[in-house]
């Protein structure tokens, strides 16, 4: 067990060192997020609908797309460096590989969201002050679900044609349930509603995370080997 965690951390650390050293993927993802938020601004009529009504949608559509872009990096990195085969030849357990990639992906997406959220608040003048902590909590819950399934699928598409496009197509239906939960909770938080009103959705998010993190972790070994 300890070895599992240690190896996962070795993989994650290597990924993060590489991502922060080369920075291209990270910067691109952050810029993409900023651009999407900007586009949203021009895609609406501020006189017709108050921003606050659209805010949760804007936030979550932006985060969803940013996450999907970010997910490609995990195995793309290995392919670019011709290292995937090396990982599979080594005694690294497939489960450790999954967890390592999951952790690296989560950190990556967290950085992107960490820039995206303040930008969102800035661009759309959204009052998050009092609900910042629960908001971050919801973002974390939903992101975990997205990235858990996305990491599994990003491995699945490596050996297929049109991998990036296929990843998006197969992943999006899986993002709908957590997305619904996330948007609803965000809307209630921004609307000043008490947290108790969001309990159903929070349970949905938590259940989704538990089920899909376990499932993806288990199924990973069937996707990554030749």
């Amino acid at each position: 067990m300890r070895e599992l965690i240690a190896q996962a951390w070795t993989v994650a650390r290597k990924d993060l060192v590489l991502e922060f050293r080369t920075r291209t993927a990270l910067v691109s993802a952050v810029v993409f997020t900023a651009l999407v938020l900007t586009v949203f601004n021009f895609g609406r009529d501020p006189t017709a609908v108050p921003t606050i009504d659209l805010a949760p949608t804007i936030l979550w559509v932006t985060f969803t797309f940013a996450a999907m872009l970010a997910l490609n990096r995990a195995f793309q990195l290995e392919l670019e460096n011709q290292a995937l085969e090396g990982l599979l030849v080594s005694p690294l357990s497939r489960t450790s590989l999954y967890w390592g990639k999951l952790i690296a992906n989560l950190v990556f997406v967290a950085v992107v969201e960490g820039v995206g959220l303040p930008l969102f608040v800035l661009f759309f003048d959204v009052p998050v002050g009092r609900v910042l902590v629960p908001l971050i909590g919801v973002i974390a819950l939903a992101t975990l679900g997205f990235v858990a399934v996305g990491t599994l699928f990003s491995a699945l598409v490596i050996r297929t044609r049109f991998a990036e496009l296929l990843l998006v197509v197969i992943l999006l239906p899986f993002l709908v349930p957590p997305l619904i939960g996330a948007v609803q909770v965000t809307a209630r938080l921004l609307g000043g509603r008490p947290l108790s009103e969001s309990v159903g959705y929070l349970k949905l998010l938590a259940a989704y995370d538990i089920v899909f993190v376990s499932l993806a972790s288990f199924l990973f070994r069937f996707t990554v080997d030749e």
Partner: protein
Amino acid sequence: MLSAEGLRHAFGEGGGQVVALDGVSFNLTSGQTLAIFGPNGAGKTTLLKVLAGLIRPQEGSVRVAGGRREIGWIGHESHLYEHLTVRENLLFWASLYGVPAARRGPRAALVLGRLGMSDRADQPVWSLSRGLAQRAAIAKALIHDPSVLLLDEPFTGLDLAAAAELRALLGEVRGGGAGGRVVVLATHNVDEGVELATDVAFQRRGRFVHFAPRGGRGSSEIAEAYRRVVAGKATDA
């Protein structure tokens, strides 16, 4: 140390099926170096991948004493992260192969020294020349001191000088006799591998059509036998 039993593996289905392995069995112990000669498409890479555990054979089994930890692989892919330094790469792989933390640094230094790369240790891999990158890949394969070395066409793309260097290096690295490693080398060029070999096999369409100690035979004899086999004639030399 390394044994294969009745390996069978095919790709595809029905009429379009390609049989990559068709009943391969052999046994190797330390100090033996098996050179597998075969034309492209003979199934050499598939065999090595099965030995390494990358592919699970449809039939048959492989036993490697000590499991994946004892296998070092040198193939077409470099297994090196371009933006990490040579040392960082070695430390990473050492960690995955279970080398204890305290021994990783010294081990890396040792291997780099042996390969004449000590002064390049802290250069990123992308900045290395092709020959040096190849040596770094070998360092990666040796970092955990494996008892089995699998090499898939390691001489590809090397000029004569570099190839000779690699041969010399492999000769050193495999050790000798009881303490030596098991080496399996697959190549389509007889000259490349014949001197190193203690045993020779010819692979054609998934089968070993010849497997024997090299004896004292030199490259030209082996090449002749190989040519006959490839032309579809003799099944033994």
